[in-house]
């Protein structure tokens, strides 16, 4: 019966060779199992988290060994660079973070790409993203031409938060480029240091508590609900997405002046971001308002004037590194500062946010034009002071130790900083409790540049999911009288002009803020998009995600589009808020042309609390976007057509493929949330012994053999470790009895 499966193929030659192939495959499979079973707990996790295991039978043992070795090397390197990392040596953490630039080779695909020119197409990126999704923390960087990019992803194992960021540096010269890369690596290292490794599977730790959540993106979680709260609420409702675009033009004079947008989610009592944070910085050449020096292909209005001023950059990697540190540490500072500020009046959860007044058209359109600046200033007053404070911080930054370092670090000395485009994406899950209120897509942009004398303190705090802060802002903006409120913190910053423009639509599910600060040619664009996931009450976890992701990506694209398209796109998007009366917020959201209709609708539905089928999304997905261009098209198309995006430039850029990535992977996202790695690791394992009755893993339909490593679920069903781990990473029930694995693990998360 051997050949029965080939019955259709007939030819004896064929079946012969096939049989041989099968045999070889079987051998490899056997070797695979042996390999996996011989791995130590740590090694296994390491490989799994980095997605290096591949398919049984498709990879030779040698290959696996090599990979493992590479991973280990990478991990060590990372650990070596960052002393603090070694303190918390969780394998996945070090492995993940270390996976940058130079250490890239360990991932095969990466290596390939690395060899050739940097992936001009987004494929690598896609691959990488795919990996990231499963592995958690990763960083990649590379460069192409005079652009270098760095992508970092961070997943919070215990919380559902997911961060992803892209950073693109446009280097002025090749020489610089090198430094850049190095710097990137260094930064990376710092990342490890600053950000505690993903919670180690230590039994004592509480995986699902805020603690864990805070770990990774220290900056974003501080305000989160207390652990107890988190534990109580189980289902993440909202995903937040923050996109930061930081084209930063080298400050003509001192570095400190350049805006370093920090993303500081304001303390959000309400936001109960749940488990999962992945941050993936992916530097991509995008048509973004990268202050296009010669390098930037972007259509953005370039501060041409600046060019002359450009100075050779003399920054050493080390300096860079410090900077990274500071940047990171800053967030806490910002928070502290905020604390110092009069606390914004807590807004009751139940309180429906006021419908934001339609922003005056000119504002949006003007985001890039100077003429409009004055307008914004005018509006500033209308903003609720507290809200404002929450989002922007006072001009005189109390020099935090870390911050001080920075100036000293030599940034100050360094004249030039290559333009950087940074995309920061955070996905957070919020608990159902806030459902109603936040079932809206909010996107905000804030930018600020501050010329602090010696500390470059430009921190942007994007409203974190906190309902309180966000609502307060929104309400304030609404009160401002139907205009997007542009705020120029004239008083505070003094020298620095802040032009923050934001318009938000509450309830409608779509809120966005767009701000721009332009100062001495330094511009920062920061956009934070909050996308609450609509929750289908009974449907369980899975459904909302896809929508959220989808709209998220659209938002991102939109955001970028806006940035690069200036007024056209801006005004375009502005339409929606304007159109939407307070009463029909969701419609407004839909109307927000910039955002894809489907996304908007889904959101709207969510806000309404009406469960929607994913059909629509599916359909949208149906149109596969084979190319970046296509992706862009879809994104736009789903909503309304926007001004022509210069696809020639953007199309080939990896960035657009992100959309592709997200859309294509929608199905995955549709699935119910699986367990976190930590939760999975907490399940017991054992080795199959001879004495055991003959059993078969029902996932791979392979009989257990001596030495196979099995994982036993609370329901007593056993599977191969690698089989069940994969299933559990996306699902939470036992494949055989369908009993929830989580029920036990989640509550008493600790062993």
């Amino acid at each position, binding site marked *: *019966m051997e050949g*029965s*499966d*080939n*019955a*259709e*193929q007939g030819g004896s030659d064929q079946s012969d060779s096939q049989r041989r192939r*099968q045999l070889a*495959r079987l051998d490899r*499979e056997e070797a695979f199992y042996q390999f996996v079973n011989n791995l130590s707990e740590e090694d296994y996790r390491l490989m799994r988290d980095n997605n290096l*295991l*591949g*398919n*049984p*039978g*498709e990879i030779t043992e040698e290959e696996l060994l090599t990979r493992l070795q590479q991973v280990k090397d990478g991990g060590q390197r990372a650990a070596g660079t960052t002393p603090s990392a070694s303190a918390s040596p969780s394998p996945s953490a070090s492995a993940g973070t270390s996976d940058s630039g130079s250490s890239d080779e360990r991932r095969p695909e990466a290596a390939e790409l690395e060899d050739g020119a940097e992936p001009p197409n987004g494929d690598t990126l896609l691959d990488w993203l795919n990996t990231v999704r499963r592995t958690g923390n990763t960083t990649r960087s590379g460069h192409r031409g005079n652009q270098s990019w760095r992508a970092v992803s961070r997943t919070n194992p215990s919380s559902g938060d997911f961060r992803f960021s892209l950073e693109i540096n446009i280097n002025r010269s090749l020489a610089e480029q090198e430094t850049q890369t190095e710097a990137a690596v260094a930064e990376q290292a710092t990342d490890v240091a600053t950000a505690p490794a993903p919670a180690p599977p230590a039994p004592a730790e509480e995986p699902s508590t805020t603690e864990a959540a805070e770990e990774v993106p220290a900056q974003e979680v501080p305000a989160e609900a207390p652990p107890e709260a988190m534990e109580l609420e189980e289902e993440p409702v909202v995903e937040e997405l923050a996109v930061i675009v930081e084209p930063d033009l080298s400050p003509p004079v001192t570095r400190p002046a350049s805006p370093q947008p920090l993303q500081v989610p304001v303390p959000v009592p309400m936001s109960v971001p749940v488990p999962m944070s992945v941050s993936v910085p992916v530097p991509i050449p995008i048509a973004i308002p990268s202050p296009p020096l010669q390098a930037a292909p972007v259509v953005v209005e370039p501060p041409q004037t600046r060019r002359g001023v450009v100075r050779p950059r003399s920054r050493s990697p080390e300096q860079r590194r410090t900077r990274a540190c500071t940047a990171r540490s800053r967030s806490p500072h910002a928070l502290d500062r905020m604390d110092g500020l009069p606390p914004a009046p807590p807004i009751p959860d139940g309180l429906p946010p006021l419908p934001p007044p339609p922003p005056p058209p000119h504002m949006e359109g003007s985001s890039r034009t100077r003429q409009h600046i004055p307008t914004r200033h005018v509006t500033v007053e209308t903003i609720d002071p507290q809200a404002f404070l929450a989002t922007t911080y006072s001009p005189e930054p109390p020099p935090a130790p870390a911050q001080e370092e920075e100036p000293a670090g030599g940034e100050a000395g360094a004249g030039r900083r290559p333009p950087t485009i940074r995309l920061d994406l955070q996905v957070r899950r919020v608990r159902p409790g806030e459902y109603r209120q936040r079932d809206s897509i909010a996107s905000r942009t804030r930018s600020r540049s501050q010329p602090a004398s010696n500390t470059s303190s430009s921190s942007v705090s994007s409203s974190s999911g906190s309902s309180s802060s966000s609502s307060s802002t929104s309400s304030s903006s609404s009160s401002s009288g139907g205009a997007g409120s542009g705020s120029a913190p004239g008083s505070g910053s003094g020298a620095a002009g802040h032009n923050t423009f934001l318009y938000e639509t509450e309830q409608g599910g779509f809120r966005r803020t767009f701000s721009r600060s332009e100062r001495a040619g330094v511009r920062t664009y920061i956009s934070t998009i909050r996308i609450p996931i609509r929750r289908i009450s009974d*449907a*369980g*976890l*899975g*459904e909302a995600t896809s929508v959220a992701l989808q709209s998220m990506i659209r938002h991102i694209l939109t955001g970028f589009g806006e940035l690069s398209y200036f007024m056209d796109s801006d005004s375009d998007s502005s339409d929606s808020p304007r159109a939407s009366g307070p009463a029909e917020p969701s419609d407004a959201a839909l109307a927000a042309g910039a955002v894809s209709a489907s996304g908007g609708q889904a959101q709207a539905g969510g806000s309404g609390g009406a469960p929607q*089928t994913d*059909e629509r999304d599916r359909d949208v997905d149906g149109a596969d976007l084979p190319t970046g261009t296509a992706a862009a098209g879809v994104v736009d198309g789903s909503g309304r057509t926007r001004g022509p995006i210069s696809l020639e430039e953007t199309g080939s850029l990896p960035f657009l493929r992100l959309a592709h990535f997200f859309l294509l992977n929608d*199905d995955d996202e*549709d*699935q*119910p949330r699986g367990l976190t790695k930590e939760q999975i690791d907490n399940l017991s394992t054992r080795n199959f012994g001879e004495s055991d009755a003959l059993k078969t893993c*029902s*996932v*791979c*339909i*392979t009989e257990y053999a001596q030495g196979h490593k099995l994982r036993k679920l609370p329901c007593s069903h056993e599977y191969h470790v*690698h*089989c069940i781990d*994969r*299933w559990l990473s*996306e*699902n939470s*029930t*036992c*494949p*055989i009895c*369908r009993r929830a694995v989580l029920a036990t693990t989640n509550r008493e998360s600790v062993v």
Partner: protein
Amino acid sequence: MQRNSRLKRELQMLSTEPPPGISCWQSGDQMDDFRAQIVGGANTPYEGGVFGLEIKIPERYPFEPPKMRFLTPIYHPNIDNAGRICLDALKLPPKGAWRPSLNISTVLTSIQLLMAEPNPDDPLMADISSEFKYNKQVYLEKARNWTEKHAIQKNDGQVKAAEKAPDLFSKDSSRKREPLKEQQSQQSKKPCL
């Protein structure tokens, strides 16, 4: 991941011990494209018919369910005109009940069962469903007609032969597929709810 090796094993099992009334084989060279046939159960309006199905194995199988649809037209509350099947085992949780411990064979068996016992409470075809509920005779009549028209081979004794040598039938059913496909494309999607 384990897709290919698992599929091989499944095929082996399907060929060695196929569930009664069910046959399944690889379509051409493709490791991800299968064909199956289900023989209409006795005492059902589908009795005597042989129903062809198309099975597509997704990349992530077995972590994702196989995609199955009827190629032979069938009059059934849970199967639409395009042959799509509303069956929980064909969908991922939380909506569905797919899990990696299921396999092609078990899913085909489920479909067989579904044919024998439609689930009018989760209809794909609302009209057929209400017919099934409130006017069963009409439903039975129509279902039989459809079976007669689309699923029963003209030759005498074919039915028996079908059980023994399903391969003989694949040709016939493939002939029927053509018109059906055109028809399918025109069908509007209906939610399986």
